[in-house]
């Protein structure tokens, strides 16, 4: 068993991944990207063994570039020996260069930044499928090993290795050049999408051993932070980083010790990570001020409004609805409309929200999606239609493929059914309670003010409910 680096050291080591890869690609050409990437990975693995034993080298980046170059030369030589008859490009690196510090050391900083960015764009090239873009980005830019990436996605290492090697082959066949040309803004959405997906994967996956199963949400934040340093003037990069921070801030409160899900309405907000909320809020505030509003900034703004509320009752639903209106204009998407319908339900009353949901049932992407039924269940309950709400929750539970979500949704259905059978035993008392808040009759503006008790109850876990 080789000695592994402590978490902090491993993070430091992986910071070098894109720099080393950039230096290699610069030296050997973008056509050799696949070899440069393998060599960088091997150098990182070598460092993970050598550094804890021998201490951090004076020039860690130089150490890595030198070792990676040597690995690459070895690899090319053995390949050449095997394929003598093939007319392969020979590029023997002078021995002096391997022993001395890298030639480009002094000017490396700014060039590294540009070249690393170009590599990131290359990894997220549309010729490669999205799961492969993710895997390649995590390895080439994130510096994670194939084994770590495989563990994070719950697939065998061989499957992940195949995915990465296929992705590199595709980039080679498509002659993707790893240089920065054309406007960055056009190529940025694909990169942001990949980082967003990595974050979501990590936000959701169960925690494991940090060394063998890396925390992908942390990795996504690290990479987005890095991208933000490279492109501080791109408001959507700031928006995505803010969104990640503002959502990740809730992590300590979003699961119970047994792993079950705690919905937003029920989370202990004192456990939210204040520093993440502050950092995210500052980022999104200045990004919005730039005037180039985009979908990530709007989602971050929505997350910020939630995070600002001291309790669920204090949530400024009117502002959230306004932001969803803008988001729907900026990036029309049935899932945005779905979320907007919930906000409409909170501002204008559940009937208005349900009406909007009704228009979504025809959308193929949503017709059988658990989220549509979960939202329906929520709004039906607010409207006082407990029986239909229970049916909607039960249907949502059947359609969800996430185990914690399924359990949560099924528990909602059970809770409502139990409340209904209770009601049959004591018809008078419960009916009286129900008629106390005929939500449809409350003026829209006052909805959120009148909502709290019933709203809170609707999102409570069974066992803690006293209807």
């Amino acid at each position, binding site marked *: 068993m080789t000695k592994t680096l402590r978490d902090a050291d491993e993070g430091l080591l992986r910071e070098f991944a894109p720099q080393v890869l950039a230096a290699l690609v610069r030296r050997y050409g973008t056509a050799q990207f696949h070899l440069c990437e393998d060599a960088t990975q091997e150098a990182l693995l070598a460092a993970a063994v050598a550094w804890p034993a021998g201490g951090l080298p004076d020039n860690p980046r130089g150490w890595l570039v030198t070792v990676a170059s040597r690995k690459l030369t070895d690899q090319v030589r053995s390949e050449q020996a095997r394929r003598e008859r093939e007319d392969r490009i020979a590029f023997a690196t002078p021995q002096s260069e391997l022993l001395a510090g890298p030639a480009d050391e002094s000017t490396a900083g700014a060039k590294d930044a540009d070249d690393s960015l170009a590599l990131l764009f290359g990894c997220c090239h549309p010729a490669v499928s999205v*799961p492969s873009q993710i895997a390649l980005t995590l390895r080439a830019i994130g510096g994670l090993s194939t084994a770590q990436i495989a563990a994070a996605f719950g697939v065998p290492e061989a499957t992940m290795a195949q995915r990465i090697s296929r992705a590199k082959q595709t980039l080679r066949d498509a002659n993707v050049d790893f240089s920065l040309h054309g406007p960055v803004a056009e190529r940025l959405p694909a990169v942001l999408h990949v980082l967003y997906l990595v974050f979501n994967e990590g936000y959701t996956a169960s925690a494991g051993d940090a060394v063998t199963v890396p925390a992908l949400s942390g990795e996504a934040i690290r990479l987005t932070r890095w991208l933000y340093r490279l492109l501080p003037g791109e408001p959507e990069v700031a928006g995505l980083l803010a969104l990640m921070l503002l959502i990740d801030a809730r992590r300590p409160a*979003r699961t119970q010790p047994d792993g079950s899900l705690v919905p937003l309405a029920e989370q202990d907000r004192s456990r939210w990570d204040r520093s993440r909320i502050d950092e995210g809020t500052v980022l999104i505030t200045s990004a919005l001020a730039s005037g180039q509003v985009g979908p990530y900034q709007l989602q971050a703004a929505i997350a910020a409004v939630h995070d600002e509320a001291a309790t669920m009752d204090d949530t400024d639903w009117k502002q959230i609805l306004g932001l969803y209106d803008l988001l729907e204009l900026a990036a029309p998407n049935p899932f945005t409309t779905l979320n907007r319908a919930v906000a409409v339900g909170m501002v204008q009353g559940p009937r208005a929200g349900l009406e909007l949901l009704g228009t979504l049932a025809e959308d193929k992407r949503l017709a059988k999606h658990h989220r549509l039924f979960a939202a329906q269940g929520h709004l039906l309950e607010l409207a006082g239609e407990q029986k239909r709400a229970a049916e909607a929750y039960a249907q949502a539970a059947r359609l969800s493929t996430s185990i914690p*979500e399924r359990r949560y949704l099924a528990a909602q259905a059970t809770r409502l059914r139990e409340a209904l059978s209770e009601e049959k035993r004591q018809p008078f008392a419960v009916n009286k309670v129900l008629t106390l808040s005929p939500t449809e009759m409350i003026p829209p503006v006052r909805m959120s003010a009148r909502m709290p008790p019933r709203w809170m109850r609707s999102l409570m876990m069974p066992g803690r409910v006293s209807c």
Partner: protein
Amino acid sequence: MKYLMLIYGNEEKWASFPAEAWPEAIARQDAFNKKYEETGELIGAYGLGAEMQARLVRRGQDGLPAVTDGPYQETKEYIASFYLLDVENEERAHQIAADMPWADEEPVELWPILHDSKNDL
């Protein structure tokens, strides 16, 4: 997203298959497996033994396994092989299932596999 693909069959069905057709059939299935292993989408492909090799296992009173023959299935066909996929989306899973060698003659059963993710509700 992970999916399970199931293929059903029975002794009668395999016996009706001419011996000379087997090599080609195996080659077709191998080609399918190789194709999707190489894309990094097929996690594994497994064929099951004969129905008579299947056993029912219970924990006996002494804590030891109590093994009996079976299952004696009501259905005429039983699971012959299964495949684990990890793909970008459901549409892709459909494409791969439809690419199974005999999907034009017999349907492939496709099940989503539950996962542990916890998106905000």
